[in-house]
Each structure stands twice: as C-alpha cells, then as structure tokens.
C-alpha cells in the first residue's frame, strides 16, 4: 500500500508502528465507525 501511494506521488508516508493493536494497547481512544 505504501509503495502504491508513493507511486501516486504521496511522499510523506508514515506507517504507524504496531498499527491499531498498539494504539489499543496504550489505551488511547477509539471510535466506532460504520462501513459506508
């Protein structure tokens, strides 16, 4: 995905270390979204 974005000209790409799992483990807030 990151490679694809770079090919499309997006340069400042920053993957989130640990992803959603790490965010959740730190106890940071989450919101429930509905799939459109």
């Amino acid at each position: 995905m990151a490679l694809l974005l770079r090919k499309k000209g997006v340069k400042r790409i920053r993957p989130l270390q640990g992803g959603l799992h790490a965010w959740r483990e730190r106890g940071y807030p989450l919101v429930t979204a509905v799939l459109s």
Partner: protein
Amino acid sequence: MHSLLDFLLRHGYVVLLVWVFAEQVGLPVPTVPLLLATGALAGAGRLSFFASLFFCVLAALAADTIWFQLGRLRGIRILQLLCKISLEPDSCVRRTEGVFSKQGARSLLFAKFLPGLGTVAPPLAGIFHMRRRRFLLFDSLGALLWAGGYLSLGYVFSGEIERIAERASALGGNLLILLIASFAAYIAYKYIARRRFLRELRIARITVDELKKKIDAGEELVIVDLRHSMDFEADPETIPGAFRMDAKELEEKSDPLPRDREVILYCT
C-alpha cells in the same frame, strides 16, 4: 527434469507428501513441475496416479488445516505471520481478501491455482469462522482439482515430458544448475527489494505516542485505516479522525490523498 524423474522414482510418494506440504505451508518451492513429472511417471506406468493424487491432497489438506486452525485461534494476526513468509505479501493478502469477500468458500476451489493465494485462503477461512466441515469439503475439492489437474496434464503429455527430460539430460547437469541458480537469483532479488523498501518505511515510522501528541496538538494529518472491509466489519473500532480506504479504492483513484500533509497509514 530427468533428475527430478529419477529422484521421484527413488523416493516416491514421500517426496510428494513433503514437497506439497512445504509449498502449502508457504515455503517458496515450485510444486507444478513436480506434479507434472509425477503425472508423467503415472502415465508411463511407473507410479500410481490415484496414490499420487491421494498423497498430494493429504499433504495440502494437512497444511491448510493447520493454517485454518491458526486463523481461528489467532485471528487477523496470523496474516502478519504470512506477510513475513510470502515474497509478495501485500498484494497476495490483499488479492485473497478481495477474492474471499466475493466468493466465500468457493474461493477455496480455485485459490491454489493462483500463486501465493492458496496459502492465505485457509487462514482467512479460519479468521472468518467458516464451519470446519464446510472448510474441509471445499478445501478437499480445491486440492483435488489443483493436484488432479496438474497430474492429469502430466499424465496426458507423458511422452512429451519424457522427451523434454531426455533432451535436458543430454544438456547435462548444467541445465539443472542454471535453473536452480535462476530460481535462487529471483528469490534473492525479491527479498533484497523488499528489505530495502521496508528499511525506508521503518525509518519513517511513527509511534502511537507521537501520533497521539500530533492529534492532540491539532496538526493537520491524514490518517488512513487500510484494513479490508471484511476486517473492518469484524472490528469496527478505529482511530479518531481516520478514514478507511482499501487497496482497491486506492488503486482506482488517481489522486487519492493530499500530497502536502503527513499521511499516517495503519492496519491491524
């Protein structure tokens, strides 16, 4: 090919069992030439077609059941493990999720014909809690079609394969060395290219603490939840301010995201 035929004749079905199992577990070993060669030997009456088919299906089913169980037990994290094994992890996982969301259990029937996808489909079936009996039925049929198809091809073209083997033999061991070297070079190239790109990304990674600070400071960020719709449905919680965009949408849009802002990507 001639050496492969000799090797197969010497060690028979054990080779088939181990080789097919290794490939289905996710190791990058080419199985199609082995199945064709086995089919050719069956055509020449030197191996049993149905015994070969049985061992292939057994090996595939054993490996797939392990992945299925791991998918059930470990959930989406098991795909992260597959990412480490596969040579084309991102596209392979993405494509399989796409196929799986459209076809469901039927995707198990043809997943093995698409390189890499055969390994990802069983854990996905486990992740999405497909019933075990249904999984075993469709996976067995898929393995039967896959192994049966290539074995039959080898069986039908047995004479031609023997001739190719004889010519290859006439060229000596150099051909085998060339083939092995080409395969090793291909794997090395893919591995190095991937490591290089991952190193670049690793340097740019953002920690969750850093992201939280940026959000609290009101920085203008673009946060993208890259999970596939199936993963998202299974766990609809997301980071505040993030929007979901999967690979398909990204590929279709020519200008998907603003280029002047930091783009934070995350998945599971």
